[in-house]
């Protein structure tokens, strides 16, 4: 029976800044998170994380897809971020799930945003 070796985790992060209009592109978010991961855990640690960033329609939220073994590393690396592209922000984790479906459900419950409006299909996500 085939065994799936690498399970994924989806971590939703919230961006907090004093300037409400600040929006960041996927590549900016990815580069910042990847750099923070690289600084904290080195090249091997960063490669093991298998990081991808998935945007949401809510500009203050984004999803980080990573290996299930690297969730703690991603959370720690994100907590160490103080600025993205020279603009000061606070990145705080909101929730962690194993599937995108669960994220939709949980966000609908806890953050009361429309799941269809908030999420993009996996085909629309940018991969790095």
């Amino acid at each position, binding site marked *: 029976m085939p065994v799936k070796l690498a399970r994924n985790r989806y971590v939703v992060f919230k961006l*907090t*800044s*004093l300037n409400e209009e600040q929006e960041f592109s996927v590549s900016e978010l990815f580069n910042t998170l990847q750099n923070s991961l690289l*600084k*904290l855990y080195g090249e091997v640690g960063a490669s093991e994380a298998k990081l991808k960033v998935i945007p949401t329609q809510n500009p203050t939220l984004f999803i980080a897809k990573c290996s299930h073994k690297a969730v*703690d590393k991603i*959370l*720690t690396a*994100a*907590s*160490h971020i*103080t*600025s993205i592209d020279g603009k*000061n*922000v*606070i*990145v*705080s*984790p*909101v929730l962690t799930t194993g599937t995108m479906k669960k994220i939709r459900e949980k966000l609908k419950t806890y953050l009361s945003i429309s799941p269809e409006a908030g999420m993009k299909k996996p085909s629309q996500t940018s991969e790095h």
Partner: protein
Amino acid sequence: MLKAAEKLNIKGIALPGFEDYKQLNEKHKLLNEVKSMFRVELYTRANISASSVKEAVKLVNKLRRKIDLICIKAFNKTLIDYALRDKRVDLILLEPYPNFKITASLFSLARQNDIAIELHLAHLLRAEGLPRSKLIGFYKLITAYSTKEDAPLILSSGAKNWYELRNFPALSSMSKVLGLSKEAILDSTINYPKKIISRNTFLKSSKLPCGVEVL
């Protein structure tokens, strides 16, 4: 900073700057005005950075029961020795690389007198590369001693700017790097601060002398 704290759903913040006992009334008035504007509980805090024990004792005498938290910045061995024995002191702030040796006896004394050792995680955000790795090593040493001696440890954001503030999930993920267990993280970020605040709020309102316990 309070606006950012509100956005992060932080329940309470201890505001430093209440060291000058002559200006306490004015500062309390200002605090009461600000309190109503935000959905964050505000507590008063004095970070005492005295050069001698005599000066520290004088400040503790003047400030006790007038503010919520009394914290002593541990600069030298004599000051930390005094702070660990004075039960009126709530916290001892360990800034990175003090000029005395960190030993297990410090933490043992802290446990006996119920005085918490505080670490500011904002130092980790400000440092990068080798300084950060040294800092993590220093903080790991402190958390290891604290776990071994079962001494109260408080991990706070220690923010000087709004973007250095961290809520509980972020603080807990940062603390995992320092080798703390889930229970220890919960204690150091929520339970101990809550315990100290409730103890001091009770003492502020009652007329019981220090050291007397209500059974």
